[in-house]
């Protein structure tokens, strides 16, 4: 494939990525699949290293309490978002697929909430029975 044409197509496409999602999912024919400029991947790659270093620093400098937990969750969500949106190309998929894949995991919030309540309850009963 002619490299110049390919990268031009790709850049024109990236500019309209959100407005023009049909292109990102075109799989037939020659200009197939998810083609995006290398620049995007290299940037995201660098950002992932930066945020991983940040989360390691949270432990290295022994931050504690609310600051530690909020920073851990913040860096985790940023990294997860970058991986799913760019590396896994979710940003360029159609909304129907995004909904089908990203909404069901929200049920897990209910599971986590219930298990947190249950865990706290078990702790209190154990503490009452064995420790006090």
């Amino acid at each position, binding site marked *: 494939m002619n490299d110049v044409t390919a990268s031009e197509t790709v850049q024109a496409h990236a500019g309209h990525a959100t407005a023009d999602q049909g292109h990102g999912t075109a799989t037939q024919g020659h200009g*197939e699949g998810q083609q995006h400029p290398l620049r995007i991947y290299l940037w995201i790659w660098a950002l992932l290293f930066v945020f991983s270093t940040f989360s390691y620093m949270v432990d290295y400098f022994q931050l504690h309490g609310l600051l530690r937990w909020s920073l851990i969750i913040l860096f*985790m969500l940023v990294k997860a978002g970058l991986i799913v949106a760019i*590396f896994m190309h979710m940003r360029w998929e159609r*909304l129907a697929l995004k909904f089908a894949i990203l909404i069901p995991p929200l049920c897990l919030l209910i599971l986590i909430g219930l298990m947190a309540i249950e865990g706290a309850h078990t*702790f209190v009963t154990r503490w009452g029975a064995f420790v006090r």
Partner: protein
Amino acid sequence: MAQDASIAGQPTAAPGLGGVAADWSGDKQAFPVPWGKVMMWIFLLSDTFIFSCFLTSYMNVRMSTTATWPDPSKVFQLEIGGHPVPLLLIAIMTMVLITSSGTMALAVNYGYRRDRAKTTALMLATAALGASFVSMQAFEWHKLIVEEGVRPWGNPMGAPQFGSAFFMITGFHGLHVSAGVVYLSVVARRVWTGFYDRKGTYETVEVTGLYWHFVDLVWVFIFAFFYLW
């Protein structure tokens, strides 16, 4: 490019919420992407639930135990020149996995450019990084089992649930990485032999990439909740 109105022979799909309704209600395939990609996404969705169950049960046992939870920062520290460095091996493993995710993303890109040599090389590099991740994990397990005396039913440092949660979560993730290394090697060989040129599409490389990025994604959560928390 503007004229590629047909996505698998269908008219250009509408954007936004209207597009969701059209995709689901139209007399057509709901997701205008290769079926392999949809299947992989659905598999990854189910895998998300499996790993979430592991992490949620870990949260539950950690909240409910009255014994102190071993401090992962200390458990996983390494001595470098007499100085203990917290979580050093885990940090290196994290970086290795992110590097492999980057090489995989580039492999997908070069695959769609039909650059067989670069795609194969990048996929093999990804597999090699994955294999080194598993090796480091084996070293870590060995250290924990033999030197620290951690067992699934107890350990000298505190809450007995630490071992079972650790072995289940990292073991299942390591299994995914090992399977991914095999998967990547098979697909890399097919790229090299021109299988996808004959097939006419490199979408399999992207689907393989989805799996590999997911393995990295799971590690992001394990790193945050198990090692840093």
